[in-house]
């Protein structure tokens, strides 16, 4: 079984996690830039963080045979702090890096005017740099947050197929299913989604444009819940091919739109149904 975790904050995890993930079949990850728990107070803290997402962390992942890519953005929470706003001006240079496969996490936390502005500005950056966008949805007032998110996405002019709306659940999935955007679900030990509930959603809504991630970070979370979800799919009658679609080919297709996904020799191991698809190298 091969697994691509399309949203995991490896900077917050240990080498034990990398070892266990590799043993469980996780061969590729995307690490979105996000809030670090402790609020930052200056743009320099962000550039050091972004530099590690395109420097040290991919090297660390490589020690365990895991391919690491990143998404870069000013996250919604810190977009509210005027001291952090200049980060928006620093993003273009990161959005040209090889390892950056989307703009993200962008979107809403508390749905303030400052968040509106940063969200719209960064969707425009995604279009300008020809990158997909990873959109976080708020934990509080979620349904209305998702509706407002989708309105901003529509208004931005970005093609819906280049947007993934993340942290969805039984309530919010309905709002996104017919928009053309990709749908992502974070599987957590207690909150967000669980493997059995995820299986039910895959049954109800199908496997197309569906992404499953662990969103593991410095909070209570588990980087092996992608694998647990794959096991739950198999146990409830989904085929090996369904599992490969949701946990490998879908994230490869979504982030492959960047033209920058470089899976190296992993791409050569693809099953016949995927052979000949050139999006892995893309761009050139």
């Amino acid at each position: 079984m091969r697994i691509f975790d399309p949203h995991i904050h490896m900077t917050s995890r240990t080498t034990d996690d990398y070892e266990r993930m590799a043993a469980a079949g996780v061969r590729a990850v995307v690490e979105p830039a996000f809030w670090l728990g402790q609020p930052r107070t200056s743009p320099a803290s962000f550039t050091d963080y972004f530099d590690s997402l395109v420097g040290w962390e991919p090297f660390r992942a490589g020690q365990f045979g895991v391919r690491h890519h990143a998404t870069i953005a000013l996250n919604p929470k810190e977009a509210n702090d005027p001291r952090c706003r200049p980060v928006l001006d620093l993003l273009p240079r990161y959005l040209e890096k090889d390892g950056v496969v989307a703009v993200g996490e962008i979107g809403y936390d508390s749905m303030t005017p400052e968040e509106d502005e940063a969200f719209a500005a960064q969707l425009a950056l995604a279009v300008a740099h020809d990158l997909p966008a990873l959109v976080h949805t708020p934990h509080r007032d979620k349904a209305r947050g998702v509706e407002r998110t989708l309105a901003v996405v529509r208004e931005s002019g970005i093609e819906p197929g280049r947007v993934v709306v993340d942290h969805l659940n039984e309530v919010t999935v309905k709002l996104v299913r017919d928009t053309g955007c990709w749908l992502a679900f974070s599987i957590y030990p207690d909150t967000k989604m669980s493997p059995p509930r995820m299986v039910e959603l895959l049954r109800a809504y199908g496997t197309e444009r569906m992404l499953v991630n662990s969103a593991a970070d410095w909070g209570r979370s588990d980087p092996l819940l992608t694998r647990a979800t794959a096991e739950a799919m198999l146990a409830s009658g989904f085929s090996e091919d369904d599992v490969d679609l949701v946990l490998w080919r879908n994230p490869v297709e979504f982030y492959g739109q960047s033209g920058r996904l470089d899976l190296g020799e992993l791409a050569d191991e693809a099953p016949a149904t995927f052979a000949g698809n050139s999006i892995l190298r893309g761009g050139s």
Partner: protein
Amino acid sequence: MTADELRAALRGVPDPDWLDAALRRVAGEPDAITRFFPAAGRHCGRAALPDAPGWTADEAARAVLLTALPTDHARYTDTLYRQGDAAEKRAVLKALPLLPIGAAAVPLLHDAIRTNDTRLLAAALGPYARHLDVAAWRQAVLKCVFTGVPLAVVADLDARADGELAVMLAGLAAERHAAGRAMPADATDLLDRLTAGSGRTSAREA
């Protein structure tokens, strides 16, 4: 390896026209290099170049972009290293001996040697490391041994290795021996060469 040799070795890359256009542009408009530099791997690929041993296509393309600058090599080198991802940093380090910058980029070597990214450490110890003072150079060589970087990457190793480096290597060998762990064979060989005839106990006997 000269810039012309790298240029020749790049003839077979996937998009040679991109590189030709980028080089012309950089010669006339130096600031354009900040746009071309991160994109080099996407246009030239990242494969090893058969005609430039030790170089990949993206590294070589970035190196020739730097050599195409008409002026201000030291300033652009510093900026592109500091704003680069790991592959860009490595390319800058490898390009240093080809650039008319004197010892101006020594701070970049210090930065690379401070990291634990073995690709950067290795790239910092090429011919340009002759500008490093001997204390920093010895520490960097010892760090190679410590992190498993083959000593073959170190330029002028035997010419520069001295008694003080031998003392440091012997100390590491003693710690490894006490812990029941092996020294890399190339480090043991170097220590043996340094201690041969000096009467010092060799690493093999320690």
